[in-house]
């Protein structure tokens, strides 16, 4: 399998799913959350052959949450970052655990730290925090009196 440059991967997805766009700052592919499963299936089984879901993380940008999926193809040596923008009052997205098993624990971690709900996840429980923990520590709104504040520069 040959190496695909990022713009070729983007054009490939765009041809099938015209609703996507490229994020200006980072070059990540921004997709609407409704098409996540279809795009993920396309990325894994046809076209670029991304066999490795390497990392899932979320970023709390205040007005929105961003989910970032880092995918790699071990056969083709290329990668892509998918992004989904979520409104803070609608933190729900489809789980990818049926496609990549690595998604199981990675999504649990995002759920644990950000409170983003993954529908159809096989086992959505907290993973790093205690199971009875109430809040979501990596949200920017989370605070704790024992936190050490930022150093003054």
């Amino acid at each position: 399998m040959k190496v695909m440059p990022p713009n070729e991967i983007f054009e490939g997805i765009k041809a099938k799913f015209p609703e996507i766009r490229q994020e200006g700052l980072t070059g990540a592919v921004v997709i609407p959350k409704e098409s996540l499963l279809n795009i993920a299936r396309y990325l894994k089984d046809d076209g670029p052959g991304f066999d490795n879901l390497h990392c899932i993380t979320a970023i709390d940008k205040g007005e929105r949450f961003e989910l970032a999926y880092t995918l790699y193809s071990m056969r083709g040596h290329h990668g892509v970052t998918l992004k989904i923008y979520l409104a803070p009052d609608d933190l729900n997205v489809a789980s990818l655990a049926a496609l990549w098993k690595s998604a199981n624990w990675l999504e649990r971690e995002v759920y644990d730290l950000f409170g983003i709900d993954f529908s159809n996840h096989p086992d959505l429980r907290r993973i790093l925090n205690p199971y009875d923990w109430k809040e979501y520590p990596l949200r920017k709104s989370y605070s704790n009196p024992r936190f050490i504040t930022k150093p003054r520069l």
Partner: protein
Amino acid sequence: MGPQHPSTHGALSLELKLDGEMIRDCTPHIGYLHRSMEKIAENRTYTQFIPFTDRLDYVASMNNNLGYVMAVEKLLNVEIHERAKYIRVIVAELNRIASHLLAIGTFAQDLGAFATPLFYCFREREKIVDIFDRICGNRLTYNYIRIGGVQFDLPKGIDEDIKAFIKYMRSKVDDYDWLLTYNTIFLARSKHIGVLPGELAINYSVSGPNLRASGVKWDLRKDEPYLVYEKLEFDIPVGENGDSWDRYKVRIEEIRQSLKIVEQAIEALPEGDPTVKVGRIHKGPPAEVYFRTENPRGELGFYIVSDGSAYPYRLKIRSPSFSNLAVLPELVKGLKVADIVCILGSLDLLMGEIDR
């Protein structure tokens, strides 16, 4: 099983469903060492966070420093001195050897080779630790690799000592082959136990020696070369069956390859001043970078989101052991309880970077 169990190398709890001695199901519970490094990072400057990376995978601190610092350098677009690149390769590979030694020693200990292999491995590891002590003054958490270079230049005469160590270590690795690798009891305990097929390993995003033992020839030092790895000559050892013995054997071979890398890097070490020339406070451009390096345990990635200030807006640590542990329930079903100990040892997990 756990959280306080000698074979878990940290605090890991496994909920086992047993049918007599046979394992029907296994659910890992983690988080006992959770310190929320990612939240801490948001309240630290880029330089201040380097010592925290030491505490992720505390047996391979140099490699953690390297992964984090290189991610920040990618964000800031910093070019470093050629000598610093070579020094980084030397210390990273020496630390890889030290880490693999610990993995092998504790693995043998878990299988009942009580104390002897462990003490042999620690004896060799001690020499590496002594070298690091002379290079940077620390024995476990080094904080040596800095944004823009390294903390100090190599002390005078250390290259002779490293060369002597390489010679010494080569003969010791051969000893391990006599002592352990083809030992009948060792083979009986680890061969065909915990077989991980290559496809499944990729699907679980398993990386490092555990992936290579499953026959997948994938090493970031070759496949996405960073620093000066493309100028150095070395092989990627792979296993055949993906069982516990293959995972052990790949580590033994990787020690040999790392020795080869260090030997070449010492020879090719250019002159110059590798220490840091940039200030301590870095303000990155608003951007997002992801960078991953090949750690002894697999692919360590840092996802840094910068908002233009001196602090990371968000820092995600993608630790290799996290994904390597996720595959454990697949490996143990249908085996005996004693085999879990063998598989855990061969996966070489480190709770410090799983829980972060």
